[in-house]
């Protein structure tokens, strides 16, 4: 009796009816009105069992606890730093979350992190008002030095990383660069200037062609040809 109106990986627009009947369940970026399921966003449909969800093609990044992001220091406060997260919301990095070492009361915080420094941080708390707390105490979280930072659409981050990090590992191996992908769409690349430029172009290519299949092979061919 229930009917599904879309195919896997089809592009849907907001308000498009995805399925009729109560046998299907609305997943991410969809909603139910009476017995119909509608799309909330422009994106690609995905059906897994009874659940219908949409992977958005574009849209802002929404901060989530546990995400690793790249931020920029915008202000130094009394007991911490204000961090621009490349979203609508700014984050707070408390002194106790910045280092493992003891920081004296009268210490100059700008000696540790100055304005316009870029940092890799983890989101440890997001309130309902979207006040974000970030931490630098985990392994691999640090102040960024050297290299370059590029920006991509944050919705394409999963494609840049790939299944089980396959894509990003490929780029790292072929270009010899160290790459950190922030969930907010900022990516840090560190390596030789040539490697960095190649990695940047490869990532921009993934961003552009993210909706196509067979991307890993294309990226591999691109990186082989580009060297």
């Amino acid at each position: 009796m229930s009917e599904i109106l879309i195919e896997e990986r089809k592009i849907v627009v907001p308000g498009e009816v995805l399925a009729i009947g109560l046998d299907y369940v609305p997943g991410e970026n969809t909603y139910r009105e009476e017995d119909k399921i509608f799309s909330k966003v422009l994106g690609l449909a995905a059906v897994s069992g009874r659940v219908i969800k949409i992977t958005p093609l574009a849209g802002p990044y929404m901060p989530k606890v546990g995400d690793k992001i790249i931020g920029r220091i915008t202000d130094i406060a009394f007991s911490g730093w204000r961090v621009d997260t490349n979203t609508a919301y700014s984050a707070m990095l408390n002194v106790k979350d910045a280092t493992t070492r003891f920081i004296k009361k009268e210490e100059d915080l700008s000696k540790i992190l100055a304005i316009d420094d870029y940092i890799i941080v983890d989101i440890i708390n997001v309130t309902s008002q979207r006040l974000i707390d970030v931490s630098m105490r985990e392994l691999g979280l640090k102040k960024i030095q050297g290299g370059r930072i590029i920006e991509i659409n944050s919705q394409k981050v999963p494609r840049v990383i790939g299944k089980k990090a396959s894509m990003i590992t490929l780029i790292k191996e072929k270009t010899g660069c160290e790459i950190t992908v922030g969930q907010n769409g900022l990516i840090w690349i560190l390596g030789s200037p040539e490697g960095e430029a190649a990695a940047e172009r490869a990532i921009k290519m993934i961003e552009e062609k993210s909706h196509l299949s067979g991307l890993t092979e294309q990226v591999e061919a691109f990186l082989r040809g580009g060297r």
Partner: protein
Amino acid sequence: MITNTKTVKELVLQNKRLDMRTFTEYRQPIEIETNISWTAEGSAKVTIGKTVVMAGVKLSLEKPYNDTPDEGGIMINAELLPLSSSEYEPGPPGIKAVELARVTDRGIREAKAIDLKALCIEPGEKAWFVTVDIISINDAGNLFDVANLATLAALKAAKFPVVNQETGSIDYKQKTGRSLPLTKEPISVTVYKIKGKLLLDPTMEEEKSAEARLTVSIDKKGTISALQKGGEGTLTIAEVGTIIDLTHEKAEELRVVLERVVVS
């Protein structure tokens, strides 16, 4: 907005750029598309790399200025749309928009690219006035050179509208085949100085890292019609010489692209 200023400067010292271009290489593609708007008398969209600028020409009949009764006029305005960069806000033009308009205007005006006397219809009474509007569609750096190319292409493509001889009113829906009296095509090339090195066609990141810049407008014969220096840094006399030599060379490259614009 990410700037990578430190990396840009480090790479420049190794004679490299973020995108691996040479210092004097323009981004590709360089494209000019004309007559993109049917409401303007002439229009053009110019793309250099990711930077896109549109320009439109409107013509109107006005009373000439009192000090030049036998001449028409030209006016160039620029607007930096908020959609073209995260730095631009809606509202009255800021200092960047004003400078862009003035540099473009000066390049064309001082070269006497348009024969203003030929725009006059009745001395002291009636003459054609040319208004050019420049808008940025995407600012990925080097707006000066792109805006200048867009303005020239739009002026080249412009056709006079039909004027009703009895009433004197302009019928903008009908165009005559007559083009503007464009006698010269002064091309602007902007050279940026970063860490003592001279770069052409900077990206947004390189623009932010630059200490100084010099815009040189040059016509086909190599005559310089205008200069504009910007930025806090200084330029030595030797550097200005090098910049002018570079301009001669690069303006020819851009001129080849501009001359490909076919005006029917």
